[in-house]
């Protein structure tokens, strides 16, 4: 048997030198192609990180986007006349921004030197927030007005207020959202809660979007609208807050439809984006911690509003800064991040009892 093998080897050894040769070259070639592949794989990420844009949720669009940008970013900028970068400071309007993530975002924008309009339902809260922000950021950079997004008149007044104070708005963030701070099965939910959730999250957002688009279309600089998504927008069921989930799913759908609509109407200077803060330790989330599962996930995945805002604001600001006119979906809590955090919790017990005591 061994002989047979040897003879076989000998007979091949003639060709061996030749035959062996291709191997290293082949492997080196494959290495090169691999490295080039990895380079092309890597490039979009570098670009993305430089632009601070994590584009869309499908890998396909990450590829195409990254590719076109890495090859000729200047070409694109020249191709569309509207794509010249907007210069900071930006004028930012955030709805529902007297507490929670809206407040954190407003603060972060102010830190970056932008002008911010804050608003919320309560006149009193707006005043105190504006006062404290004015103290913190010495100059006149912040304005505030009461606005109930469910009321179309209020939203129109908000637009005229913003126009009066700032002339134009570059970034409009639809942050106002509600869960009526109740987490129960739908059967037990009260009329008022259900109506409040739907009118604030869906109706209010639609009216805000309409007014924002209306305002921005006429602005020379155009504008960017960001809709904040929430639990349920990815289509995963949201028991105990079914109505909230339904409204947030409808938000993402509305963004998608509006993107298609604007494209259809050939509106180039207004872009509607989605913004996903992930789980943020605000009242809205914390009012729902009464099950073991909820405690686990909040401890593992949630972050304080300041941390989230710190990540989101540079990403948001980079969009007008680049002059990019592509719809994006900025996510704080990406799938990979979520899974790695769950894994580290399960494997090393990290983040246990971080915010809430788990028994």
């Amino acid at each position, binding site marked *: 048997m061994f002989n047979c093998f040897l003879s076989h080897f000998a007979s091949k050894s003639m060709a061996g030198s030749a035959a062996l040769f291709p191997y290293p070259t082949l492997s080196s070639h494959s290495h090169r192609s691999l490295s080039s592949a990895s380079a092309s794989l890597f490039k979009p990420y570098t670009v993305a990180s430089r632009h601070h844009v994590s584009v869309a949720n499908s890998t396909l669009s990450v590829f195409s986007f990254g590719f076109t940008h890495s090859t000729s970013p200047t070409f694109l900028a020249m191709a569309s006349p509207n794509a010249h970068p907007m210069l900071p400071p930006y004028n930012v309007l955030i709805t529902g921004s007297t507490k929670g993530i809206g407040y954190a975002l407003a603060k972060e924008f102010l830190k970056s030197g932008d002008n911010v309009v804050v608003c919320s339902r309560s006149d009193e809260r707006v005043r105190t927030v504006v006062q404290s922000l004015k103290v913190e950021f010495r100059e006149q950079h912040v304005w505030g007005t009461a606005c109930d997004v469910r009321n179309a008149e209020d939203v129109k007044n908000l637009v005229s207020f913003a126009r009066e104070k700032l002339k134009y708005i570059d970034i409009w963030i639809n942050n106002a959202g509600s869960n009526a701070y109740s987490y129960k099965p739908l*059967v037990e939910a009260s009329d008022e809660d259900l109506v409040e959730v*739907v*009118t604030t999250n869906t109706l209010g957002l639609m009216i805000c979007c309409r007014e924002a688009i209306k305002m921005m279309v006429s602005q020379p600089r155009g504008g960017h609208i960001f809709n904040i998504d929430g639990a*349920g927008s990815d*289509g995963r069921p949201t*028991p105990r807050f079914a109505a909230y989930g*339904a409204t947030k*799913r*409808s*938000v993402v759908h509305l963004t998608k439809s509006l993107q298609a609509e604007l494209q259809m109407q050939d509106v180039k200077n207004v872009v509607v984006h989605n913004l996903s803060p992930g789980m943020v330790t605000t009242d809205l989330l914390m009012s729902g911690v009464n099950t073991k599962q909820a405690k686990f996930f909040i401890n593992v995945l949630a972050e304080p509003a300041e941390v989230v805002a710190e990540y989101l604001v540079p990403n948001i600001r980079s969009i007008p800064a680049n002059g990019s006119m592509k719809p994006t979906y900025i996510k704080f809590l990406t799938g990979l991040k979520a899974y790695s955090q769950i894994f580290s919790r399960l494997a090393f017990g990290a983040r246990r009892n971080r915010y809430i005591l788990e028994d």
Partner: protein
Amino acid sequence: MAAVVKLHVFPESLSQHKTRLLRGLGSCPSPGVLGFGRNCDGFSVKECRAFRTEDGGDVKEKKFRTLKKNGVKAERQSGFWSSLKSILLRNFMVGSKSDDEYRQAVVRVEEVLSSIAIQIGRYIVTMMSTGFILSIGFQMSGGDSQMDALIWYSWLGGIIIGTMIGANMVLEEHCRAGPRNVVITGSTRGLGKALAREFLLSGDRVIVTSRSPESVQETIKELEENLKEGIANAVGSSLTKLSQAKVVGIACDVCEPHDVRRLANFAVKELGQVDIWINNAGTNKGFRPLLQFSDEDIKQIVSTNLIGSILCTREAMRIMRNQAKAGHIFNMDGAGSGGSSTPLTAVYGSTKCGLRQLQGSLLKECKRSKVGVHTASPGMVLTDLLLSGSTVQNRQMFNIICELPETVARTLVPRMRVVKGTGKAINYLTPPRILLALVTAWLRRGRWFDDQGRALYAAEADRLRNWAEDRARFSFTDAMEMYTENTWLSVFSLSVVCAFIILSSTGNTLPGT
């Protein structure tokens, strides 16, 4: 099986059942089993194929026999039973009880006995036909013991499959019997009205609602007319079925919590319990960009589609939890439910997409309760919702894929009536239907609208007249859809049996070699 058969020995559903079974038998085996049955022609001596044909032929033969038998049975029974009835009547005439009661009692006895006799007769015929095939098989095998065993196997397989199909049909028939209590929101126009009519003509008790009390009254009147016509045309058991049907109504704005609660209380008061609750109320307000929608438009769309559905679902769940029998809630799908973007109907689309999320969440919440949450997707229906503000180009497209509300209701209602469990999706536009529409797109060019976008189809009243005649006719696509699951089941089990036979035959031959 015997127990199952007993179950459906209800006097009222007897003749209806018979026709249904005939229908089912005629249509069900044709798509799937016929393929096997065809092999009968090439009844070759080759072992494997011979067995398969044997099996297929067996099932098919059985069906035909039963089919024929049903016809024969009906004739024979009339002669025999009428004589029995007269004898019974004569005997009891001398008793003290009144004539009427006797007649009723006798009629009941007659119905029960005849249905039992039919079942027995059916079995005898089935067994005889299979025995006949069996004997042919034995003759062809020529006394080979191995072949005989295989024939027995295939016979057994045939019996099992036949029983499965039969049991399924009987169960479905049993489910179908009895009136349902149905609440349909937004049912004075379009699809809702068509659904209400279809339920009513299936013998159900229906509550119609809408925002305006006048249109509710009008609709009730109209539906009662339809019911009267239906009763006038009905004979036999369908008459008894229709006599239980009724329609009542109440005005209800689905986005007003008080109205919805009143509707739920009204339903409980009128019907006792609610079996099916359909959240059909929905509105769109035309096709245009979001910028051109007024505040009021957006508000109405959101509150009707999303708030209305949520409130109605909650009320329905509330009353269904307190009743003995399980209830089913249907939410209507629309454009955007699937998640694809809906430019020009952004508001409508996003509310419908939200409803899909609601459905998913409720499914989890209602996991262990009696309440079933389902979705029904009517596809594209020629109603005001779709037609208001549609362009000529739109209408050309509608020609291909759209359907009249009555057509859609006719397909959806039978399925809604027999829905079981939770989380079912009842769709009108199923892949075969879409395929059919695409294939015949050219033929469908001028179906509903002409080149200028003018409507070519008849008004509702005319449509209904034609449709009432058409109703009795049997729709092949419907039957195919209805029984397609059974067919696949039978084909699957048939192939399993075949595989088993082949395996066992090779198992027998291996030790020999």
